[in-house]
C-alpha cells in the first residue's frame, strides 16, 4: 500500500525527537452499504476509506497523528506532528523491517467486492418478504446490508511489518409493528468475519421472523414492574450484560490507571464459582475475530475469569508498559482515525451444566429477558445499565405475560457474584462496541443464566 522505504523514513522521522517506539498503521477499506425500505432499495452507498495513523511513545506518553494525505510529504508531515509532542534528541533508531506473512484462520470464500449488487439485494428482498409477511401488524420493515474489506499494513520501530485483510458482512433486520397509536420494534443483526457466503447462507426464516415476532409480541406486552427480582438472561446477545458489567472493567484502558473495580485483584475471587469468562479473538470467522490485532499482535484466547477467580486482563502495548505485563492481542481501533487501545473481541461466559428449561422451572417469580438491547457502564464505579428488547414475567416456574420498557441496572462486580445458574447452551451474538478507540465489531455470548437479584426499572412502578 505504501513503499517500504517510505515507511522506514516515516518511522525514523517519528522517533527523531526522543520517542522510544513508533508505529505506522495504513488502512485501505472498501465498504458497501445498502438500505431496503418497504421492499425498495432506498439507498446504496459504496466508498473507500484510506488513511494513515502514526503513533509515537515515550514511556507512558503517547502521541498520535493521522492523515488522508498518503504522499511521502503528507506522511512525513504527520510523523513530524506526532514527534513534535516530544522534545529531545533521538534515543533509538527503528529496527530494519522484516515482513511477516501468515495464513489467516478466517478464510473468505466469496469476496463481497466480486458480488453483483443485485445479488446482495435479492437476499435483502427475501428477508423483507419473510419479515413483512410474518403478521398483519407489521407496518414497516427495514433491511440493512453491510460489507467491508479492510486492508491494513502495520509496521513499527521494532521491525514488525505485516499486512492483513479483514472481510466482514452483516445484515440487520428491523421490523415495526403498529396497533392504533402503539408502535413497537424488533431487531436482529447477524454478522460475521466472512464474505458473501455468510449473507447467502443466513437462515432468513429464523432471523427475519424473529425480528417481526419480537415487534408483534411487544405490542401486547404489559409495562414492566420495577424492583429487585431474579433475572434469567437468555443466551447469545444476552451476553451483553457481562460485556458491560465486567468486560469493560477488564480492559487495560481502565485497569492500568487503577480505575477499575478489577484493578490489582488477579488471583482473587471476583465472581460466582459458576462463572468462567473468556475473550477469544481466534474463533474462526466470528464477527469479533481478527487474525492479528491493530498493533500486529496475534489474537489469543484470553481466560479472564476462571471458576470465579480473576485470571487476566485485556492489554494493549501502551498499557502493558504501565502495568508491567504482556500485551494480549487485544489492541483494536475503529479505523486509522483512532489510536488503538485494549478492547474486547468475542467475549463470552463458558457453558455450565443447567438445562435452560430447568432454569426457568426453578424460578418462582422473576423476569426472563429473551433478547437484550444495548447497554453501557461507568468503568470507575462499574455501575451498568442495559435495555431489554423482549422480556417476560416468570411465575411459578413458567413464562407468563410479555413485558416492555425494562431496563436492568446494577454493579458489575456485585452482579457477577450473584450468578446462581448457568445453562449449557452457549451462543454468540454480533454487536458494535463503542469506546475510546471508536466503534468496533464484537461478539458477546453466554449460555442462558440466572442472576439471583437485579434491579429492574420499568414504567409500571413498584410491585
Amino acid at each position, binding site marked *: 500500500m505504501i513503499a517500504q522505504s517510505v515507511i522506514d523514513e516515516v518511522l525514523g522521522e517519528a522517533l527523531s525527537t526522543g520517542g522510544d517506539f513508533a508505529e505506522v498503521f495504513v488502512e485501505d477499506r472498501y465498504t458497501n452499504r445498502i438500505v431496503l425500505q418497504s421492499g425498495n*432499495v432506498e439507498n*446504496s452507498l459504496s466508498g473507500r476509506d484510506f488513511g494513515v495513523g502514526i503513533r509515537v511513545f515515550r514511556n507512558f506518553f503517547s*502521541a498520535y497523528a493521522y492523515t*488522508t494525505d498518503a504522499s511521502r510529504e503528507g506522511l512525513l508531515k504527520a510523523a513530524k506532528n506526532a514527534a513534535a509532542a516530544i522534545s529531545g534528541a533521538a534515543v533509538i533508531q527503528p529496527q530494519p523491517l522484516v515482513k511477516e506473512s501468515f495464513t489467516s484462520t478466517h478464510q473468505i470464500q466469496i469476496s463481497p467486492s466480486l458480488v453483483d449488487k443485485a445479488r446482495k439485494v435479492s437476499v435483502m428482498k427475501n428477508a423483507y418478504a419473510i419479515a413483512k409477511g410474518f403478521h398483519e401488524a407489521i407496518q414497516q420493515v427495514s433491511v440493512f446490508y453491510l460489507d467491508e474489506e479492510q486492508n491494513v499494513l502495520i509496521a513499527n520501530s521494532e521491525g514488525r511489518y505485516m499486512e492483513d485483510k479483514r472481510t466482514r458482512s452483516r445484515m440487520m433486520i428491523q421490523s415495526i409493528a403498529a396497533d392504533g397509536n402503539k408502535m413497537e420494534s424488533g431487531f436482529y443483526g447477524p454478522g460475521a468475519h466472512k464474505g458473501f457466503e455468510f449473507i447467502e447462507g443466513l437462515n432468513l426464516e429464523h432471523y427475519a421472523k424473529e425480528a417481526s415476532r419480537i415487534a408483534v409480541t411487544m405490542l401486547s406486552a404489559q409495562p414492566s414492574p420495577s424492583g429487585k427480582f431474579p433475572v434469567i438472561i437468555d443466551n447469545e446477545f444476552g451476553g451483553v450484560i457481562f460485556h458491560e458489567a465486567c468486560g469493560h472493567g477488564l480492559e487495560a484502558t481502565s485497569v492500568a490507571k487503577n480505575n477499575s473495580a478489577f484493578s490489582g485483584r488477579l488471583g482473587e475471587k471476583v465472581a460466582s464459582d459458576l462463572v468462567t469468562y473468556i475473550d477469544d479473538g481466534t474463533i474462526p470467522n466470528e464477527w469479533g475475530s481478527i487474525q492479528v490485532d491493530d498493533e500486529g499482535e496475534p489474537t489469543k484466547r484470553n481466560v479472564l475469569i476462571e471458576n470465579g477467580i480473576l485470571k487476566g486482563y485485556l492489554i494493549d502495548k501502551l498499557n502493558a508498559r504501565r502495568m508491567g505485563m504482556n500485551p494480549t492481542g487485544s489492541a483494536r481501533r475503529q479505523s486509522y482515525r483512532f489510536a488503538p487501545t485494549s478492547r474486547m473481541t468475542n467475549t463470552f461466559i463458558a457453558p455450565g451444566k443447567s438445562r435452560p428449561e430447568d432454569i426457568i422451572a426453578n424460578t418462582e417469580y422473576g423476569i426472563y429477558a429473551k433478547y437484550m438491547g444495548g447497554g453501557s457502564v461507568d468503568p470507575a*464505579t462499574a*455501575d451498568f*445499565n442495559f*435495555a431489554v428488547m423482549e422480556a417476560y414475567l416468570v411465575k411459578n416456574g413458567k413464562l407468563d405475560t410479555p413485558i416492555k420498557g425494562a431496563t436492568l441496572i446494577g454493579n458489575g462486580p456485585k452482579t457477577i457474584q450473584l450468578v446462581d445458574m448457568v445453562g449449557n447452551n452457549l451462543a454468540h451474538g454480533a454487536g458494535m462496541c463503542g469506546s475510546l478507540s471508536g466503534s468496533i465489531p464484537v461478539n458477546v455470548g453466554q449460555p442462558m443464566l440466572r442472576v439471583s437479584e437485579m434491579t429492574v426499572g420499568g414504567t409500571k412502578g413498584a410491585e
Partner: protein
Amino acid sequence: MEIFDFQKQLFALGEQQGFVDMELYYEHREKFGCRIFEGEVDNYESSEVAGISFRGLYNGKMGYAFTEKISEDSMDYLLENAKDNAGIIDDEEGEEIFAGSESYRDLSFYAGPLDQVTISEIMQFGLEVEKKILAFDKRVKTTNYFMLSRSSEERQLINSKGLQLFDKQNYFGMYVSVVVEDAGQVKTGSYECITKDFHSLNADEIAEKAAKEALDQLGSRSISNKNYPVILRNDMAATMLQTFSQVFSAENVQKGRSRLKDRIGTKIGVSALQINDDPFLPEGIFSRTFDGEGVAAKELQVVKDGQLLSLLHNRKTAKKAQTESTGHAYKSSYKDSISVSPSNFYIGAGEKSLDEMISMIHVGVLITDLTGLHSGANSVSGQFSLAAKGFYIVDGKVRSAVNQMTIAGDFFELINAIEVIGNDLEFVSPSMAPGYFGSPSLLVSNLSVTVD
C-alpha cells in the same frame, strides 16, 4: 490533488460515461486533541483528513460513492460504483441535484481567535484545570478521563447545475470525568463543554463544577420505588430532547418510525412548550447557512404553544409531503447519504430558576445524569427507561444523592406532563443524535423511578 481540478476532471469523465447531473461534496477537517492524566499530558493527537462524496444522476436514478483518496486513480472507482448503486435503486421519488436557493445568509461561524490559541496554551489549560480539580477536596481521587480538543472543518458543495457553496466551522471541546471516594464509596461526575470562545473558559469554575458533580453524589441512599415529580436539570432535559429529536424528522414520520404522523396542527405538548430550530445561532455548533443538499438554512418554529407546526424536511421528504424543504438535509460526512436532522434545536426558556423549581416540590427527584440513551430509549415507540443519577428532594430542598436509579416513561407523555419550564436554557455537546440541543430545566409531574 486540488479539489477544483479533481471536480472538473471527474465531471468531464462522468458526462462521457452517461451521468446527467453530478455533485461533489468535499470535507476537510483538522483536529488537535490531548488527554491529561495525573499532572501530565499523556496523550496527544493531531490530524488532517479530507474526503469527497460524489453523486450523480444515471439513467434517472441517483448513485452515490465516496473516497478519501482524492487522486485521479479514484475517479473510475467513484463513477463505476455510483453507476452500480444507481442501478439497484428502486426509489420512485426521483431524487434531483439542486440548482440552489434564491439567497443565502451572509454569515460566518468560524471563530478566527480560536485558531490563534496555541496547542501549548490548550495543554497548559488542561493541566491547570486538573490540578484545581485534584486540589478541590481531599475526597477527589483522580480524573479518569480528561480530554481537550480543537477542531475545524470546511465543506464545499459543487454541482453541475452551477451551485457552489462553501463554509467553515471551528470549536473547542473538553470533557472531564472525576472520581471521588469516601468511606469506601466511589462516585464519578463529569463536566463537558463545547465553545468557540476559548478565553471565556475559567479554570476555577470548571474545576469546581466538575469536582462538585462527583462529590455531591457521595452519601447516596436508596429511596422507595414509585412515581415522583421529577426535575430534569437543563443539560439532562436537552439530552432527552436529543434522544427523541428524530421523531420530528419527516423522513421518520413518512417511514412509520415516528408517532408524529398526521399530527401537524395538533397539540402534542403543554401550552408553554416552544421548540425551535435556529441554524444561525452565533455560538451554535450546528450553525450553517446551507444544508447537506445546498438548500439555504432558515429558522423554524417546530412547536408553538404546544402545537406541532412543522416537521423537519429535506428536499425528498418535502416533495413527498408536497411542501418546501425546511433546509434540514443532513450528511454526517462524505461517507453518508442524505438524511434529515436539526441544526441548533432547543426548547424555549420559561421564567423559573432551578432553585425555585426545587422549592415547589414536596417529595420528588432531581435528575442530573442520564446514561444508556442509545439502548434504553426507543424513538419509535416513544418509551424510555434510563439509568440516572440525581437527588432526593423533600419539602422544597435537596436532601441527599440517590443510588443509581432508572427513570422510565414515554416521551410524548412527558412533553404533556411538563409543569414548569425553567429560565436556564443550556446547550449540550453533540453526541448520539446529530444536532446541537438545548433546553431549560423541566419539572415533570410524574415519572416512574426505580432505585438500585
